């Protein structure tokens, strides 16, 4: 079974803090993705990566950055957290055939 692990299930941070969300996959997938899920808006793509050290902006990259130093790990960084970044964050990986496998999600609250 594909396993995508997100390091935290719940996080509470303060406005202005730098926040790191970590994601690890164990299937040697080339592609990894970060989404946020908000009520009524579905899943929106923040950033994705096709290979180590490569990254591409998704639909809502503002306020975020990413890092992919190793194939199995994809990190999402909130440089200076704001209250409008309170959300459910979902990481996914894919072998490149359309189907993406998701982690359990990190619910981030920014106070």
């Amino acid at each position, binding site marked *: 079974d594909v396993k*995508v692990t997100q390091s935290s*299930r719940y996080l509470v941070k303060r406005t202005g803090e730098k926040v790191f969300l970590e994601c690890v996959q164990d299937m040697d997938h080339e*592609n990894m993705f970060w*989404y946020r899920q908000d009520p*009524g*808006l*579905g*899943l*929106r*793509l923040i950033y*994705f990566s*096709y290979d180590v050290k490569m990254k591409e902006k*998704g639909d809502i990259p503002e306020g975020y950055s990413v890092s992919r130093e190793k194939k199995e790990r994809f990190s999402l960084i909130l440089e200076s957290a704001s209250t409008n970044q309170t959300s459910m964050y*979902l990481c*996914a990986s*894919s072998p*490149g*055939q*359309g*189907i*993406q*496998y*998701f*982690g*359990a*999600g990190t619910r981030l609250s920014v106070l």
Partner: protein
Amino acid sequence: DQQVKQNSPSLSVQEGRISILNCDYTNSMFDYFLWYKKYPAEGPTFLISISSIKDKNEDGRFTVFLNKSAKHLSLHIVPSQPGDSAVYFCAATPGPDKLIFGTGTRLQVFP
């Protein structure tokens, strides 16, 4: 602009009956479509997919129909079971990598 739309935010169905979830898309370049199911506090899990060269794909109780001329797909679940209660997302891709998700439909199956 929402390229993948799920116009019904919720659906309630009696156990044993058919559930029909609908999805519309605007981009005729989409060539692969997927349905995901999401339980609370879990990541989305892949359910079923269909290529644009087909108009139907079936997997057990789940069938996806694609009407390319209408840019419409639907997911049929028959018979519906209480364990099917979840949020269902449709997704589309113009290629093997990125997915564009709809806003989701919450299905409740009651006894």
